[in-house]
C-alpha cells in the first residue's frame, strides 16, 4: 500500500501541470465564483440602473426624481446620454433603454401627477399613476425599484403630502382655525428641510396603499415569458458546451493527427497547413452549428422555446458563435503540447469564461463591474446576441455589435492558430 502511495505521489509531483490542476484549479474557481456572486451584496457595485422620465415637470416630480437619485441602491439616469448630457429622456427613449437592456427599469412620472397630488394628497388613486417600464422577467430590479419608489414618495415630499392631506381634511371636516394654519405653515418648511437633509426620512418603505399609484408595464411584450427564460439557459449551456466540444474536436483533429502520424502524411500532400486548418475549422464550425441547433430544437419541443419565430436571428448568432468557438478550439489545440495540457488549460478557460460571461448566472443580475469584466469573455458576446434575439426581440441588423466582435475573434483566433501551427511544419 505504501509503495502504491509512493508511486502516486512521485507521479503527481513530477507532473507539474497535474499538480497545479489538483490544488490551484479549485482555488481559482472558488475565487472567481466568490467575486462573481459574492460581490452582489456590495451596494457600491450592484446599483440598479434606472431611467427616470419626467413628463410632469412639477415640483413633486422633481422631488421624486431627486429622491430616487439619493438612493444608494440606484443609479439614476434622466438624459439621453448616460454621462448626463443630451436632452431629457422621454417615454419612448426610456422604453427603448429597457428594451435594449441598457437599464432594467424606467420610471415614468406622467403629466398631471403633481397637480393631482396637490389636490388629492395621499389618496391619489384616481390620479395618474407612475409607470414602471420594465422587463418583468428580471426577478430583482423591478421589485426593488417599486419598493424604493414607495419609500421615496413618503420621504421625498412629506410636506406636500401633509398639505394635500390637510386640503382633503378641510374638504370633508371644514377649514382649520387661523392658529392651526399658522402652526402647520411653520411645521411644513421644517418637514421639507428634514426630507432634503434626509434626517427624518430614512427607514423602510411605508405601506404601499399610502403612497402614489404605481403601474408596472412589461415593455418586452414577450408572448412566451417562460420561453424567453428557457432560451437564456439554452444559449448559456449551449455556448459553454459548444466551447467544450470545439476544444475536444480540435484536440482530436490536430493532436490525434500528430500522435498517429497522419498529420505528417497530410502535410506531405498538396493541402498544406493553411488548407488543413481551414478544413478543420470549417468542420468544427458546422458541428457547432448542428450542436446548437439540436439544443434549441429540443428547447422548442420540450420547453416551448420560441425558436421558429426568431429563426433569422438564431441562425445569425449560431453561425457567428460556432465559427468563433471552432477557431478558439483550434488556438487551444495548437497551443497545447499534450492532451493533458489541452484538457487542463481549456477546462480552466472555459469554466472561467462561462462564469464571467453569464453561461451559469445571467450577466444582467451581476454587478456593473462584473458585467464589464464579462465583456472580455467569448460567452458574454454570444449570450448577449441570443438574449437580444429571444428576449429583447431585436431585429437581425441589431445584432451587428455581437456579430462584429465574434467575427473579429474568429479572424484573430484563426490567425493565432496558424502562427502556432508553424511548429508542426518544417523543423
Amino acid at each position, binding site marked *: 500500500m505504501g509503495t502504491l502511495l509512493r508511486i502516486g505521489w512521485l507521479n503527481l509531483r513530477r507532473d507539474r501541470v497535474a499538480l497545479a490542476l489538483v490544488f490551484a484549479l479549485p482555488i481559482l474557481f472558488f475565487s472567481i465564483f466568490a467575486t462573481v456572486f459574492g460581490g452582489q451584496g456590495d451596494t457600491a457595485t450592484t446599483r440598479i440602473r434606472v431611467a427616470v422620465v419626467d413628463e410632469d415637470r412639477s415640483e413633486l416630480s422633481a422631488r421624486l426624481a431627486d429622491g430616487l437619485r439619493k438612493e444608494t441602491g440606484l443609479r439614476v439616469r434622466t438624459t439621453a446620454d448616460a454621462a448626463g448630457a443630451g436632452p431629457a429622456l422621454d417615454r419612448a427613449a426610456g422604453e427603448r433603454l429597457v428594451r435594449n437592456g441598457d437599464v432594467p427599469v424606467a420610471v415614468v412620472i406622467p403629466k398631471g401627477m403633481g397637480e393631482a397630488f396637490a389636490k388629492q394628497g395621499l389618496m391619489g388613486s384616481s390620479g395618474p399613476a407612475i409607470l414602471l417600464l420594465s422587463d418583468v422577467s428580471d426577478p430583482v430590479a423591478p421589485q426593488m425599484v417599486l419598493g424604493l419608489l414607495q419609500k421615496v414618495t413618503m420621504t421625498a415630499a412629506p410636506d406636500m403630502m401633509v398639505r394635500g392631506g390637510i386640503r382633503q381634511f378641510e374638504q370633508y371636516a371644514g377649514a382649520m382655525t387661523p392658529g392651526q394654519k399658522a402652526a402647520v405653515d411653520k411645521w411644513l418648511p421644517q418637514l421639507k428641510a428634514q426630507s432634503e437633509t434626509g434626517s427624518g426620512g430614512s427607514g423602510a418603505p411605508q405601506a404601499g396603499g399610502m403612497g402614489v399609484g404605481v403601474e408596472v408595464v412589461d415593455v418586452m411584450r414577450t408572448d412566451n415569458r417562460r420561453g424567453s427564460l428557457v432560451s437564456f439557459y439554452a444559449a448559456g449551456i449551449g455556448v459553454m458546451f459548444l466551447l467544450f466540444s470545439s476544444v475536444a474536436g480540435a484536440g482530436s483533429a490536430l493532436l490525434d493527427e500528430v500522435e498517429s*502520424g497522419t498529420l*505528417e*502524411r497530410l502535410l506531405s*500532400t*498538396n493541402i498544406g497547413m493553411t488548407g488543413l486548418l481551414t478544413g478543420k475549422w470549417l468542420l468544427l464550425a458546422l458541428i457547432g452549428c448542428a450542436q446548437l441547433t439540436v439544443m434549441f430544437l429540443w428547447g422548442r419541443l420540450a420547453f416551448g422555446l420560441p425558436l421558429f419565430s426568431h429563426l433569422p436571428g438564431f441562425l445569425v448568432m449560431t453561425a457567428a458563435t460556432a465559427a468563433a468557438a471552432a477557431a478558439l478550439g483550434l488556438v487551444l489545440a495548437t497551443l497545447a503540447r499534450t492532451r493533458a495540457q489541452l484538457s487542463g488549460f481549456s477546462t480552466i478557460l472555459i469554466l472561467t469564461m462561462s462564469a464571467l460571461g453569464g453561461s451559469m448566472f445571467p450577466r444582467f443580475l451581476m454587478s456593473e463591474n462584473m458585467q464589464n469584466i464579462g465583456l472580455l469573455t467569448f460567452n458574454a458576446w454570444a449570450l448577449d446576441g441570443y438574449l437580444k434575439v429571444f428576449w429583447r426581440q431585436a431585429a437581425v441588423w441589431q445584432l451587428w455589435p455581437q456579430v462584429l466582435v465574434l467575427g473579429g475573434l474568429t479572424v484573430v483566433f484563426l490567425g493565432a492558430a496558424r502562427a502556432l501551427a508553424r511548429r508542426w511544419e*518544417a523543423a
Partner: protein
Amino acid sequence: MNVLTVTDARKKFGSVVALDGASFELRQGELLALLGPNGAGKTTLIRAIAGRVRLDGGEIRIFDRIADGRRTPPELGIVPQEIALYPLLTARENLEVFGKLHGLSGTALTKQVDWALEQTGLADRAREPVRQFSGGMRRRLNIACGVLHRPRIVLLDEPTVGVDPQSRDRIYDVLAELAASGVSLLLTTHHLEEAEARCSRTVIIDHGRVIAGGTLAELVDRTVGRFRLVTLRLDAPLAAEAIVDVAAAAPDISADATDARVVRARMRDVALELPPLLERIRRAGRSVDDVEVRGPSLQAVFIHLTGRELRE
C-alpha cells in the same frame, strides 16, 4: 542516373547533432537501404528530403532541382514510420482520402486505388475498417497510401517495424515490384538481414554521417575482405602444446573468449584450407562436434566500420 543527391547534410536540434555532413545518392530504379542504429540520423535525413526538416547546411537535389526544405516535392511519396491511417475508415476510404489530397480524382483515383489494393494484397479486405487489420496489413496499407499517386521516388521510414516475417516478405515483394517499374526507393532500417537480402545497395549511417555505401560485395571488399569465417566446436579444449601445431595450418585461428572448445579461423579458400586444419585437430586427439562456415556479411562490415554490433 541519380534521382536524389544529398550532399553534406547538416542539422542540429538544440545541442544534439542529428546530421553531421551526410552525403549519398539514390539511383533510378534501385532499392537503397539507409542502415544505422537508433539515433543515427536516418529519420532526420528522410524528413529533410521530404521537406519536413530544414537543413542547417548542405544540399538536397531531386532530379537536378535543389529542394527548398519547405514543402514535399511532388515527385516524392512518403511512408512514415507510424501507421499514419484513419482507423475508423476502411482501407479503400483511406486510400481515396490520401489519393484526393495528392491531387487524384475521378477514374484516375479509382484506378490507382484498385491498383494499390491489388499490389498490397488487400483487395478482398478493402471495405473493412482499418482498426480490424493485423499489424502487417496496416503496414502494407501504410505503404499503399504513400505510393498511390505513383511517385518517382518513395521514402520509407522503417517500413517493416513490428511485422511478422511473412508480412515482411510481402512488403519487400511490393517494394521490389515498384523498383522493377522504375521507381526509386529509399528505406531506413536497422535490420541487417533485410538490407543484405532485399536491397540493391546499402548506405551505412552512424552519428549523423554516412560512413560507407555500396553493394554488399563492394562493402565487403572495402572493409573485411572476402574471407569466410569458419567456426569449429571441439569435444574438449586443445591442449597448450597442440595449439602451435594446429595454428600452423590456420594462421588466423583464435579460441572463443567464453568457451575454449570453440575455435574460429578466417579462410580465403575453405576447400583448400579446412582439410589440413581438421587433420591437425584429429592428430591433437580432439574430435569436431560442429562446423559452421559463414560468408562475409553486412554484420561483419558494420562491426568493422563502427567497432560495435548494430543494436536493435
